[in-house]
């Protein structure tokens, strides 16, 4: 919600409202003595994105007590009772009032509060703000009349508010986002709009979990990616021994703290799962050998370590746990995965690991209210075991939605360029670093790459990828060597970040086209097995190359351009620019 502009939120809220129209409405009534109209779309949006058909209604301005008489049934009142506006300029006038006058106001207000308590005693939940003086006292360290008045009424509130009243401490929001960001005095004086959209968003994120929990809508499962989510580094490329997990390693502390937070959640009955594109053995190695992992292998109820798309994996987890995906939180560092899940499973709450890692633990903390539960029972605590038992009984179910639709929606563009001098350094680096999608895993030094660039018998093609969310930069390389009438693919590699989008087959097709344009027909290629590149073992087989022969860890393939291009099926949703 915080990433959305107000106008986007406004529109999305309306659209969500349309989508959820058929569902039973959750009614919220906003009662206030300041103008709070912008709270309506924000609050509705926050609840609607949790698929509740929330309908917030502004009641008449500065008429809290009378309006509270009309609130019935399950409607949840949200009350903004600003003492500064008990009457116009009250916070300033009170400073010259006599003690008698002040106590008359206190008495009048407590009476009204008591009436309000009575009127709202039947509501399932009442969101009521503790009074705050800070807007009018933060300029002085000694107290003033208004501060004492506010304290007196807060004491009354705490002592007398019925149990269904949830008292929100606005000062916490003020200190989190600053007073300046919370109020807009310009709008207050012109139209009694006291709070900014920023404040309303923060306020909403505080109260929404509470509202959700009253509708049994809290999140119960957190699904995590591994690389750069649970630890810093890529196990498949860096090896388990080089991952940063604890404060011994640079950046490790962020991941350690995140693991600590997650560990504490297990105690509260939250279920943790893994969903990672990796070799399962690599991940298990981390658990076995890295004793500085706070989270242990057993802490995860389900582990989906495979190369399937994550939306399918999450659906399977839902099936196995017998829980709706609307109780899931999904954490991943990849924008691609996050967006795939958002698109295919919009009800899943997604958290993307922030680029600035020092935000990461705080970001997880900020989402914890989503797991908030008013009633905390032994059943919750036993949930982990229960799920594990349930798991044995369920059979695997795989559902597969149309991936192509999703991929098409991304607007993927690939740019193929040839011997661009500016890319030389990066391409050399790619040969050094790429382990998984790398057919021959030949490591080259800058000098060697330079020779390729200069030789007329060698093609060096780079691949850059972007989609509507951003640019991945240079993420692929192909080196082709020409001799007599044969073109040999010396190197073909792609960064793992872009897999799962069929970019590899587009790249191969472009490579073959180029060879053909150079009036070569015969192409030879090699797959050289390493510990890490199992993922491309059958890449050439699947691409229609003929196996010539194999020995030890090497397989040699061949095809002709004509045959390849004759059989190739173009990937329509990827735009190629060269």
């Amino acid at each position, binding site marked *: 919600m915080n990433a959305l502009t107000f*106008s986007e939120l406004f529109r999305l809220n309306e659209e969500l409202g349309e989508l959820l129209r058929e569902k039973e409405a959750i009614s919220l009534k906003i009662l206030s003595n300041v103008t709070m109209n912008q709270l309506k779309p924000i609050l509705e949006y926050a609840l609607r994105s949790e698929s509740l058909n929330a309908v917030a209604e502004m009641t008449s301005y500065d008429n809290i007590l009378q309006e509270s008489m009309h609130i019935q049934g399950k409607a949840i009142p949200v009350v903004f009772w600003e003492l500064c506006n008990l009457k116009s300029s009250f916070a300033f006038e009170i400073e010259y009032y006599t003690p008698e006058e002040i106590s008359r106001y206190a008495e009048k207000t407590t009476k009204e509060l008591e009436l309000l308590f009575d009127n709202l005693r039947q509501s399932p939940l009442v969101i009521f703000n503790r009074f705050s003086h800070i807007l009018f006292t933060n300029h002085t360290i000694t107290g003033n009349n208004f501060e004492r008045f506010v304290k007196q009424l807060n004491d009354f509130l705490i002592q007398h508010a019925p149990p269904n009243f949830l008292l929100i401490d606005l000062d916490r929001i003020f200190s989190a986002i600053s007073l300046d960001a919370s109020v807009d005095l310009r709008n207050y004086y012109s139209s009694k709009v006291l709070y900014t959209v920023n404040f309303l968003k923060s306020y909403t994120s505080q109260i929404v979990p509470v509202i959700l929990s009253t509708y049994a809508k809290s999140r119960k499962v957190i699904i995590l990616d591994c690389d750069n989510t649970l630890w810093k580094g890529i196990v498949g490329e860096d090896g388990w021994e080089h991952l940063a997990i604890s404060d011994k390693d640079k950046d490790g502390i962020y991941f350690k703290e995140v693991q600590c937070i997650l560990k504490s959640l297990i105690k509260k009955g939250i279920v943790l799962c893994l969903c990672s594109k990796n070799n399962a053995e690599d991940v298990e190695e981390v658990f076995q050998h890295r004793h500085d992992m706070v989270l242990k292998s057993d802490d995860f109820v389900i582990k989906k370590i495979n190369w399937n798309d994550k939306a399918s994996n999450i659906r399977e987890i839902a099936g196995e746990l017998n829980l709706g995906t609307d109780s899931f939180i999904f954490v991943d560092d990849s924008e691609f995965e996050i967006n795939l899940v958002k698109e295919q499973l919009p009800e899943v709450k997604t958290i993307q690991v922030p680029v600035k890692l020092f935000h990461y633990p705080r970001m997880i903390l900020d989402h914890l209210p989503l797991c908030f539960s008013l009633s905390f029972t032994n059943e919750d605590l036993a949930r982990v075991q229960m799920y594990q038992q349930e798991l044995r009984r369920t059979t695997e179910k795989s559902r597969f939605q149309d991936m192509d639709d999703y991929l098409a929606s991304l607007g993927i563009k690939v740019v193929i360029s040839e011997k661009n001098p500016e890319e030389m350094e990066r391409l050399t680096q790619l040969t050094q670093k790429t382990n998984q999608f790398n057919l021959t895993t030949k490591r080259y030094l800058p000098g060697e790459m330079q020779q390729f660039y200069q030789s007329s018998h060698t093609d060096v093609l780079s691949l850059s990828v972007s989609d509507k969310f951003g640019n991945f930069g240079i993420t692929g390389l192909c080196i082709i060597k020409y001799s007599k009438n044969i073109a040999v693919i010396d190197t073909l590699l792609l960064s793992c970040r872009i897999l799962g989008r069929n970019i590899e087959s587009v790249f191969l097709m472009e490579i073959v086209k180029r060879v053909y344009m150079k009036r070569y027909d015969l192409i030879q290629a090699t797959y050289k097995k390493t510990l890490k590149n199992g993922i491309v073992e059958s890449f050439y087989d699947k691409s229609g190359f003929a196996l010539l022969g194999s020995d030890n860890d090497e397989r040699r393939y061949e095809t002709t351009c004509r045959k390849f291009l004759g059989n190739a099926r173009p990937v329509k949703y990827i735009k190629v620019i060269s």
Partner: protein
Amino acid sequence: MEEKVRRIMSSVFLVDIEKIDENASPETLPKWDSLGHLNLITSIEEEFGITLDDEQIIEMLNYKLVLEVIRECLKASS
């Protein structure tokens, strides 16, 4: 900039972007009332990173004037 303003207006006034033409004004858009105006101002300030003064808020009487006032603001701040 025009596109951005049109998108904002279509969002806060809940109409298709095609409805936001040169002549868009409170008379052509039912949701452009005082509350709609507040939402418009909030969004413009947020998305253009500007702060409008009281007078400018009042001057935004129609689409063309919204553009004009934003231009004025951006010019003053650059």
